[in-house]
């Protein structure tokens, strides 16, 4: 306290309290008070901004999908699945080189279809860890205290999951392509098929990532998210193939192509059959023509857009 306190103050209290200067008083003038400066300084360095925060979230989510930057135990499952995904490609290359075949005996576009269970388990285990934990521990508001918007969070998570799936599905194709060149197969033909395979797995990655994240974002409990993703991917595929088999056995062959619209994987199969030169893998070698192919494409794009929309709606009122 300073000694500049007005006289009136001293007069009014002098007879009650010995030292009136110690009393905080409403009549004291403002210039007498002072906040003690303990040396805090404001940050005046460069601010990295929204794009940087979005990129960080993307790379952190992508690394997290493979357990990088997480505990050793959480690296086991994704790395194991990655190895399981790549091992058949190495075997295919080895056999093709050994037997001097003029083409690989598994086509690029069929590879992800054959190993769909690995892809589904990878997605089912990693999509919930990407979004469910943020929801359950209510850390989502912390992300939004950074300069990112809702759209950045959704795009970063969506992009990271799709990229993780693309890495998982495209790496074995790359191994096969390298192998085909080592085996001196026709370069132009192999490159074209490799390109078609890449487009196919890219579509598959984006579609599956969207579906997986929607399932996971709707269930904060990790276990239920895993089961929901598997149910949507594997069970719908099993159900559709069963129905296709039945309609083939009962000569309802016209229905086979249309039934394919009802599960994510058969959508990809139909799409690559129509536009990417893939072998017809529906029962009875039913071909998906360009006309129906457009319907397939529209539904795939619609599903991806719907997943994006649902995720945006989900994070509109999250966590607070």
């Amino acid at each position: 306290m300073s000694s500049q306190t007005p006289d009136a103050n001293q007069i009014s209290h002098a007879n009650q309290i010995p030292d009136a200067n110690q009393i905080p008083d409403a009549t004291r003038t403002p210039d007498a008070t002072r906040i003690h400066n303990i040396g805090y300084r404001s940050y005046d360095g460069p601010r990295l901004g929204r794009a940087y925060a979005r990129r960080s979230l993307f790379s952190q989510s992508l690394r997290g999908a493979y357990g990088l930057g997480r505990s050793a135990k959480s690296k086991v499952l994704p790395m194991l699945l990655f190895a399981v995904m790549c091992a058949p490609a190495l075997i295919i290359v080895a056999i093709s080189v050994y037997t001097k075949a003029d083409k690989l005996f598994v086509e690029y576009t069929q590879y992800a279809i054959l190993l769909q269970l690995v892809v589904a388990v990878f997605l089912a285990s990693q999509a919930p860890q990407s979004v469910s934990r943020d929801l359950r521990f209510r850390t989502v508001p912390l992300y939004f205290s950074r300069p990112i918007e809702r759209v950045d969070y959704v795009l970063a998570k969506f992009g990271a999951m799709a990229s993780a799936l693309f890495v998982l599905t495209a790496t074995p194709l790359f191994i096969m392509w390298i192998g085909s060149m080592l085996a001196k197969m026709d370069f132009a033909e192999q490159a074209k098929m490799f390109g078609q395979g890449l487009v196919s797995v890219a579509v598959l990655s984006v579609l599956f990532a969207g579906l997986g994240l929607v399932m996971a974002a709707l269930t904060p409990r990790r276990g239920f998210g895993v089961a929901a993703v598997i149910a949507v991917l594997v069970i719908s595929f099993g159900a559709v193939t069963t129905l296709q088999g039945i309609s083939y056995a009962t000569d309802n062959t016209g229905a086979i192509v249309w039934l394919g619209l009802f599960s994510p994987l058969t959508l990809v199969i139909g799409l690559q059959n129509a536009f990417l030169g893939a072998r017809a893998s529906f029962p009875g070698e039913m071909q998906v023509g360009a006309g129906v192919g457009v319907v397939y494409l529209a539904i795939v794009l619609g599903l991806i857009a719907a997943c994006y929309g649902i995720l945006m709606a989900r994070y509109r009122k999250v966590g607070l």
Partner: protein
Amino acid sequence: MYDPTVARLTYRALLGRRRAAILFLLPALLLLIAVAVRVLNGADDQVAADLLGGFALATMVPLIGVIAGTGAIGPEIDDGSIVYLLSKPVKRTTIITTKLIVAVAVTMVFSAVPTLIAGFILNGNGQQVAVAYTVATLVASIAYSALFLLLGTVSRHAVVIGLVYALVWEALFGSLISGAKTLSVQQWALALAHKVTGNGLVTSEVGLTTAVTLLVAVTVVATWFAGQKLRKLTLAGEE
């Protein structure tokens, strides 16, 4: 051995809110396929047996078993709220058996009832196919629930491991490698169903004695081991 409060909490955890939706999804799909097959194909005993064996017993029961078995205890261990249950004066073996009973009941209701209805839709229980597969699903429910409840206490990735077992071992290896069939809950259940109905359409790779012995052994050992795991449970932090 049975604690009503633990049972009530477990029922709530399994069937509360949206969680029941996924349990309804699979039976609904089975019934939908059954109706579609009946309409497209008419009644056929072989098709009915294939569908009930291939979809209901091989896919639906393990999946519902995974959801109910691990869901009965997994989430509680996962988020640490199991400590509130463990700190109560209830024996841990009682907790496990209660949760097992609830998981078995849920699996049975959500798999056996739709199987029976689907069987009647498919061919009106011709050659006892519907009843045989219902028996098989009932038996399989018990073993699967015990196995997956154990998984729930052992690993944090119980659902993933359970799904890989259900889809890869039971569905894929079980149909490719005959040796794997001896160690498949599905085949044990089929052996019992074959015995109960004396049905030519329901066949199993394993004998009845082997099947019953292994079923009982797996259920008892899994439950006992789950109890042991719960007795010295350490709560792992979120990674």
